[in-house]
């Protein structure tokens, strides 16, 4: 199974649509332990991304992802702008000049994205951030691939792990991001960034299912 540039574009279009649907929900999660803007921020960013897509439709996957990354950096703001922006930029660097990706290329791109977030955010697992959704997903994806699962099966396992990861943020004490200011009071709330990451993981699964 090969992933083409059009699939990447479909994926981002789907994310943009889902973000718009979930905008208020994400913002509401951010009200509880943040500043009530996460959904609004992402919606502003992905809406702009949509308007940029036509200009890169015929480009290689790396260029498309880099354009998405710089657009997110330039329009989202807040913490999630540089983080998701860096993630797409790094994924773009890992896929430079490629018009097609195999399953393992995708895994490598996702690993690069995660690493980018960790470096930019100076953060690691267990701090109640998007990393707690993305890292278990990438782990599960790699493990499933290593045990011979096809991409769709592996991706399903990754989304399941991602869901678990999001749930696991609820009892966590935040030590990074805005929720960390709350100390103990951050406990008991689901992290908005982890939730938006799950939204993207589900969108990716949907696209991959569509290809096969």
């Amino acid at each position: 199974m090969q992933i083409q540039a059009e699939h990447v574009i479909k994926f981002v279009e789907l994310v943009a649509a889902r973000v718009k649907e979930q905008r208020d929900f994400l913002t509401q999660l951010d009200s509880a332990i943040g500043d009530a803007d996460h959904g609004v921020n992402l919606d502003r960013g992905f809406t702009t991304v949509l308007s940029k897509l036509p200009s890169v439709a015929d480009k290689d996957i790396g260029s498309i992802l880099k354009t998405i990354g710089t657009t997110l950096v330039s329009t989202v703001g807040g913490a999630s702008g540089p983080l998701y922006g860096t993630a797409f930029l790094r994924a773009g660097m890992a896929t430079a000049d490629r018009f097609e990706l195999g399953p393992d290329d995708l895994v490598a791109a996702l690993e690069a994205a995660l690493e980018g977030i960790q470096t930019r955010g100076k953060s690691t697992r267990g701090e109640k951030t998007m990393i707690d959704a993305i890292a278990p997903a990438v782990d599960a994806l790699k493990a499933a691939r290593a045990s011979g699962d096809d991409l769709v099966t592996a991706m399903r396992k990754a989304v399941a792990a991602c869901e678990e990861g999001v749930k696991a943020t609820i009892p966590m004490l935040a030590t990074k991001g805005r929720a960390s200011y709350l100390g103990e009071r951050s406990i008991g709330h689901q992290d908005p960034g982890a939730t938006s990451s799950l939204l993207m993981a589900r969108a990716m699964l949907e696209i991959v299912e569509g290809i096969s």
Partner: protein
Amino acid sequence: MKKLINAPENVVKEALAGMADAHSDLIRVHYDPDYIVRADAPVQGKVGVISGGGSGHEPMHGGFVGKGMLDAACPGAVFTSPVPDQMLAATRAVSGGKGVLHVVKNYTGDVMNFEMAAELAAAEGIEVASVVTNDDVAVKDSLYTAGRRGVGVTVLLEKIAGAAAEAGADLAEVKRIAEKVNAQGRSMGMALTSCTVPHAGKPTFELPDDEMEIGIGIHGEPGRTRTKLASATEIAEMLAGPILEDLPFQSGDTVLAFVNGMGGTPLIELYLMYNELHRILKGKGITIGRRLVGSYITSLEMAGCSFTLVKLDDELTRLWDAPVHTPALRWGM
């Protein structure tokens, strides 16, 4: 949601247009990317001092652009850090050959966006230094967390570092002074009511009629504790106590005392709170050498206040007293 606005997504741009016209003698507003810049920028041979952050904290930062304070300010969406494009463009616009200082409040988003902008500016050959304010004692600090928020000290630092830059100090010196203000400053705030982010349309948190939030941030983030309403005297103790212990401030110290309104607090209450702070400090043998009372770093229409104390020495006092002419702070010219 009761606000004097049109569409939520246009609030920042429309307010910027108002500022641009109201203060055309002092500032220019650039759109897309949005930034406010001194009318005479770039000032050749002067260190540029810029800041930025989410909107909704007015007059911070745009109201502090002008002679003797900031060279530029980058307003983000309401409560959302601006993006690197803004900071990069502002950095270029104020670069007068002696480098540019970025004044960054310690929020993950602000720090990361300014970092990216600084990397890009450096790649263009502009020397950039950064100072990160983190004066909010309501947040428990540790090496392993995001650390404390930057709040009230930011305003005082922008004035003092701005004066140093205006007087011709080089980048290292302006940075040293800025870091001193931050090191010697501590803040804490409280809220009587929540605020409503225009886009969200409803209050960020619900606060019952008989409760208040202590240790609140400036973005409607919930605070350290929620407690029953208390008298001004009690609230002043709750804010001043942790501030005084933290540095610690000591008998014999002289301070710059800043009583700040959160946006929806009338001035009569701020003067009343200043009176409480004055009484507390007097009791501890601490002298208020300089003071600022008013709503300068706000959280939309939130009702509440914050205290900030900065330990003064001759250098900081002299720089505080230096002339300043911006939309929101003005003296000596």
